[in-house]
């Protein structure tokens, strides 16, 4: 049963993800919902934000005087960088990801299944965004977190037994943060790590 509105809004979801990000770590934030995390990360966490188009050290938004068309994140939004930032080409950027040097990646999702597989890049015959960097981002970082709404527009749980959409990665997801709770795929089912106030386990339609 999906509630309107869902128990956690997007900012609350972002804050839940942040509780799973370690101090001093490097984090890649995917396009869409995860972008919100950058706005809410406390400076005390000393996180270095990586964006796969070739920057480490993303630090908020520019002003109308500092904005630059060549300073963007992977969502093609204008950004500001910290004084500890660096720029590099795409091969080095993805080497950082695949090579395991980025600690954590947060991605959006269409489906996650009990085998820890993620689908988030196409709906056959209907919609193709392409995988962009997502297939690399689920294969390398030490922790892969998916941040997505729990239910589809038609009210179906997006946490499923087996993904029906083409996969982004097989057996890659560590944690799923939805607007109803936090879940860990175990191979057989989803372990409930946290559940929003007022939600019962039956409401979640977990497989």
């Amino acid at each position, binding site marked *: 049963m999906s509630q309107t509105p869902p128990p956690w809004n997007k900012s609350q979801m972002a804050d839940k993800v942040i509780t799973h990000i370690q101090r001093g770590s490097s984090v890649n934030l995917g396009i869409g919902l995860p972008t*919100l995390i950058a706005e809410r990360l406390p400076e005390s966490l000393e996180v270095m934000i990586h964006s796969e188009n070739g920057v480490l050290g993303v630090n908020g938004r520019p002003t109308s005087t500092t904005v630059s068309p060549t300073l963007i994140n992977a969502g093609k939004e204008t950004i500001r960088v910290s004084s500890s930032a660096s720029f590099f080409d795409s091969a080095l950027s993805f080497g950082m990801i695949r090579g395991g040097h980025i600690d954590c990646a947060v991605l959006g999702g269409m489906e996650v299944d009990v085998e820890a597989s993620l689908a988030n890049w196409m709906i056959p015959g209907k919609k193709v965004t392409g995988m962009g960097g997502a297939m690399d981002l689920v294969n390398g970082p030490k922790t892969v977190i998916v941040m997505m709404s729990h239910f589809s527009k038609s009210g179906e749980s997006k946490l499923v037994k087996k993904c029906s959409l083409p996969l982004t990665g097989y057996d890659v997801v560590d944690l799923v943060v939805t607007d109803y709770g936090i879940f860990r795929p175990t191979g057989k089912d989803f372990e409930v790590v946290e559940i929003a106030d007022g939600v019962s386990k039956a409401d979640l339609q977990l497989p």
Partner: protein
Amino acid sequence: MTHKVYQNAKEACSDIFSGASIMSGGFGLCGIPENSIDALTQLPITDLTIISNNIGNSGRGLVKILVQDKIKKAYCSYVGGNPDLEKRLLNESLEVELVPQGTFSERIRAAGLGIRAFFTPTGYGTLIAEGKEVREFDRSCVLETALSADFAIIKAEKGDPYGNLWFKETARNFSPLMAMAAKTTIVEVEQLVDFGEIPAEDVHLPGLFVQRIYQGKDYLNDIEFLKLEGDEVNS
């Protein structure tokens, strides 16, 4: 040493031929070779193979030659935000090979540096791995081959007459990799500078990989999503 210096895009791109494969730098519209793309729109060529992360966006960048039906095949990683490309992909009027972005950049880098193929975990267990050799290392990995091209068209902030290049901020992305992977690399620059103006330690791409360079003009440098400090965050 000025034999690499061309007058403009028209002169530098004049021998690009029908059926050629062309790599084009840029991430979205950031760092795209605007002048060379405009030159392609004016050439009577067709059946191009284009290798570019996004193939432009909403009417801009490489979409200009996409809508002229000059492209036969496209290699890219991301279609989102490019409805002209998504439409042609879904109705199969254009052959599109979607390549995961890290594999895309590594295949290009590999071609430039003499590596024929490599094994990567990216794409294992997905559609991308279909028909490809899989081998077990610490994890299951997919064999991916190098990706080269006849031409690369790229843009840099500064370049000298030998083709030593310096890129600004995040405009570097795929451009230096493509320069290494193409037979003929055509560079346009915001500033064509004298030798020594880019300190040797700060050269991002040695001019060895550049065959042609010209002073570009009339740059739009479009911003796709302008976000400023204090903008309301959608919560």
